[in-house]
C-alpha cells in the first residue's frame, strides 16, 4: 500500500482534455460553417421576380411586382395573421411607416376575416396587400418562413432580405439598407 505517483500514465491524464478540445473545434466548425441557414441570400442583387397577386382584402388593392422599381425604394413584408412573430414586428413596421417608408405586404395562406382582425389589432402600415394563398410567390421570392422583409430599390432590385421579425434593434439596419437602396 505504498503511496506512489503514477509516472507511467501521465500522458493519459491529459487525453480526456485533448478529446474534449477536438470536440469543441469540431462543433465550432459546425456552428459557424458559412453555408448557413439563410437559404435564399442569392436573390440579393437580382431583380424582383414577376408576380401579380389578387387583393387580400376585397376593398384594398392587390400587389404586383410592377408596383416596385418606380424610382423609390420600398419594403416588401411577407406576413400572416397566424404568425406570432409578425405581431412582434408590427410596432417596428408602424414606426417605419411613420418615417415615410412605403411598405407593401404579401399575406401568406390567410383569410380576409383573420387578416382584418390582425390589422385592427396590430396596426396597418401597408399600402397594398397581396394574397398568396398557395405560397407560390413566397417560394419564388426565396422566402423560407414568415415574417420576412425585403428591401427593394428604385429599379426593382432586391437589396436586402431580413429573415425573421424586425426587432427594435434591427431598425437602424433596415434604415441603413433603405438608404443604400436609395442611392
Amino acid at each position, binding site marked *: 500500500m505504498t503511496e506512489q*505517483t503514477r509516472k507511467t500514465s501521465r500522458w493519459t491524464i491529459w487525453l480526456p482534455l485533448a478529446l474534449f478540445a477536438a470536440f469543441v473545434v469540431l462543433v465550432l466548425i459546425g456552428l459557424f460553417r458559412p453555408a448557413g441557414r439563410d437559404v435564399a441570400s442569392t436573390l440579393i442583387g437580382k431583380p424582383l421576380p414577376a408576380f401579380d397577386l389578387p387583393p387580400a382584402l376585397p376593398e384594398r388593392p392587390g400587389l404586383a411586382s410592377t408596383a416596385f422599381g418606380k424610382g423609390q425604394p420600398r419594403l416588401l413584408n411577407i406576413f400572416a395573421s397566424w404568425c406570432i412573430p409578425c405581431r412582434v414586428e408590427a410596432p417596428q413596421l408602424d414606426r417605419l411607416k411613420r418615417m415615410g417608408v412605403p411598405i407593401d405586404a404579401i399575406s401568406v395562406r390567410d383569410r380576409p376575416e383573420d387578416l382584418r382582425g390582425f390589422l385592427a389589432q396590430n396596426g396597418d402600415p401597408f399600402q397594398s396587400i397581396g394574397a398568396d394563398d398557395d405560397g407560390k410567390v413566397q417560394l419564388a421570392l426565396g422566402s423560407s418562413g414568415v415574417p420576412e422583409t425585403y428591401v427593394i430599390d428604385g429599379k426593382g432590385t432586391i437589396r436586402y432580405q431580413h429573415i425573421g421579425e424586425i426587432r427594435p434593434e434591427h431598425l437602424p439596419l433596415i434604415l441603413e439598407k433603405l438608404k443604400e437602396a436609395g442611392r
Partner: protein
Amino acid sequence: MIAEFGLAALWLAAALAALQLIAGALALTPRGAALAGVVRPVAVVQGLLALAAFGALILVFAETDLSVKLVAMNSHSMKPLIFKIAGAWGNHEGSMLLWVTVMGMAGGFVALVEKRLPEPTMLATLAGQAFVSLGFYAFLLIASNPFERLSPAPPEGNGLNPLLQDLGLAFHPPTLYLGYVGLSVAFSFAIGALVTRQVGPAFARAMRPWVLAAWIFLTVGITAGSYWAYYELGWGGWWFWDPVENASLMPWLAATALLHSCGVLAARNALRAWTVMLGVVAFSMSMIGTFLVRSGILTSVHAFAVDPERGSFILALLAINIGGALTLFGLRAATVTEGERFRPVSREGALVLNNVMLSAILGIVLFGTLYPLLAEAMGAKVSVGPPYFNPMSAIFFVPMLVVLAVGPLLRWRRDTFARVRKRLALPLLAVLAGIAIVLAIGDVAVLPFLGLVLAAGLAVASVLPLRDRNLRRTPLPVWGMVLAHFGIAVALFGMASESAFSVEKLVAVRTGETTRVGPWAIRLMAVEPVAGPNWTALEAQMLARYQDGRGTELRPQSRSFWTPPQQTSESALLTRWNGQLYAVLGGEATDGRWQLRLWWKPFVPMIWLGGLLIALGGVLALAGRTASDIRRLVARDKIAYRRTRQGR
C-alpha cells in the same frame, strides 16, 4: 407582476450564486476562513430563489398571461391546464430555467444535509456548483430571459407543438433534467475533491447517493422517452438512435460506470483518479447532450428551434466548465495517490471491466452521434443510424453482460474462477436451454439470438448473489443490485424478442374486411371523424381477436391539430401478457380502402418493464444507503453527546 417577481428572484439567485462562489473560494484561503459559515446558507437560499422563479413561470403559464412573450409563443388559452403548465418547460427558455432550478435545489440540498466530508472539500464543492450555476444563470438572463414581456399582448397564443401535448412527454423532460442536473452534484464533488486532494472512500460515499438518485431519474426518463417514441411517433420502433435519445443515453452510460466505480472506491479505496474522472465526464455528457439538442447543430425529430447564437453561448459554457474541470484533473490527478491494490480476477477487476466496456459503448455512441458533424466538416453529408449503432454497441455490450453475470459472485481483492465455477452451472444451464428453445423456433438473426440466450443466463445469474444469504438480513443495496441486474435481463429479453419475433403487416382494406397479423385477426369496422379540444381526427374502429377468441376494440387515429396546423397519428395499442398489438391508421387509398399498419410484437412491454425494474433496483439501493447513513449519523451524534456529558 408575477413575471417581474420571477425575474427578480432569478437575478437575486444569480447574485447569490456569485456570492457562493466567491465566499466558497475565499474561505479556502487562510485569510478568508471567516466566510466559511456563509456558504451553506447562501446555497440553500439560492436554491429556494431559483425555485421561486420557476414557480412564477408556472403561474404565468397556468393563467396564460399572453403579455409574457414565452407564453404567447408556446401556449394557448384553449389548452387543458395540465398542458399549459407543462408548456412552461416545453420550450427552450423554460427548460433552461428548470435546469438552473434543479441545479440550485440540488446544491442547496447538498449544503443542508452533507456533513461527512471535511469542510474545505465541501466549500470547494459548493463553490464549484455555484460556478457552474452562474454560467447558466448568465445564459438565462442575457440570452434567453423567460419572463420577457410582449407589448402589445397578442389576443391568442401560438399554441404548443401538438406532438408535445401528451402526458408522458409533458413529464418526460423534467425527469431527464433531474437526472442530468443531479449529475452536476457529482461533478462539483469531483471538483471539490480535486481542489483539496481528498479523494477517498468518504468522498465516494458522499457522492454515491447523488449519482444513484440522478441515475434513477435518468433510467426512468430514458424508459419513458423510449415508450413515448414507441407509441407517439407511430413507427413501431422503440429506439431510433436519434441525437436526442443518444443525448440521454450517454450520461446514463457514464453515470452507470460512475456508480460502479464509486462502489469500488467506497468499499476498497481503489480506482481513485478514475472515479473522479468519471464524475467529471458524467455531467459533461449531460451538458454536451443538452448542447447538441439545444443548439440545433444536429437535426432530430425531437429538436427545438435552431439557434446558432444560443448554441455558441452554451458551447462557451461547456468549454469553460468541462475544459476547466479536465485541466484541473490533469494538474491534480497525477498527485492523487494510488489506491488499494487488487488482482485482475476479483470483484474490483470485474467492475473495472464493466467500466471499460461502458466507456467503450459511451465512446461509440458519442462518436456515432458526432460523426455527421465530422463528415460535414470534410464535405460529405451523412446520417448515422441503427446499422452502425446496433452491432457496434453489441460488441461491447455482450462481454459486459458476461462480466455482469460473473462479477457479483466474485470476492473483493482476489478470487479464482475455480471457486465460482460451480455456481455458474445454473446460468450456463439456462443459456443452453435458451439455445435449444431458440433453435427449435428457428430462424433468428445473430443479435436477437445472442440477446435471448444471454437474457436467459443473466436472469438466473442475477439472483445468484442471494443464494447462501439470509434473505431477511440481506442489506437493501444487495437487493437493489440483484433487482437492477435482473431488470437488465428482462429488458434485454424484450428487445431481443421484439426484433426476433415481431410480425408486421401493411395493408389497404375496406370497412368490413378482416386481415391477419401473427395470431390476430383484425376487422376494420368503420372509419369516422371525431373531434377533440383542439384537433379533429379520423378514427378507425377495429375489432381484434387473439387466436379467434373474444374481440377487443382498437381505435387508432390520424389527428389534425389546428394551432399550429399539424398532423399526427395516434397509434392504438392492445397489451396482453405475451406481447402488444400495435395499430396505425394511414390515409385513404383512391378506391375507398384504408391503409393500416399492424404489428404483433411478442413480449415488447418487457423492455420498459425491465427499465422500471432497473430504476426500482436503484431506489432500493438508495433507500438502503440513506437509511444506513442516517443510522450512522445518529450513532455518531449519540457518542458525541455522551462524550460531552462525560466531559462535564
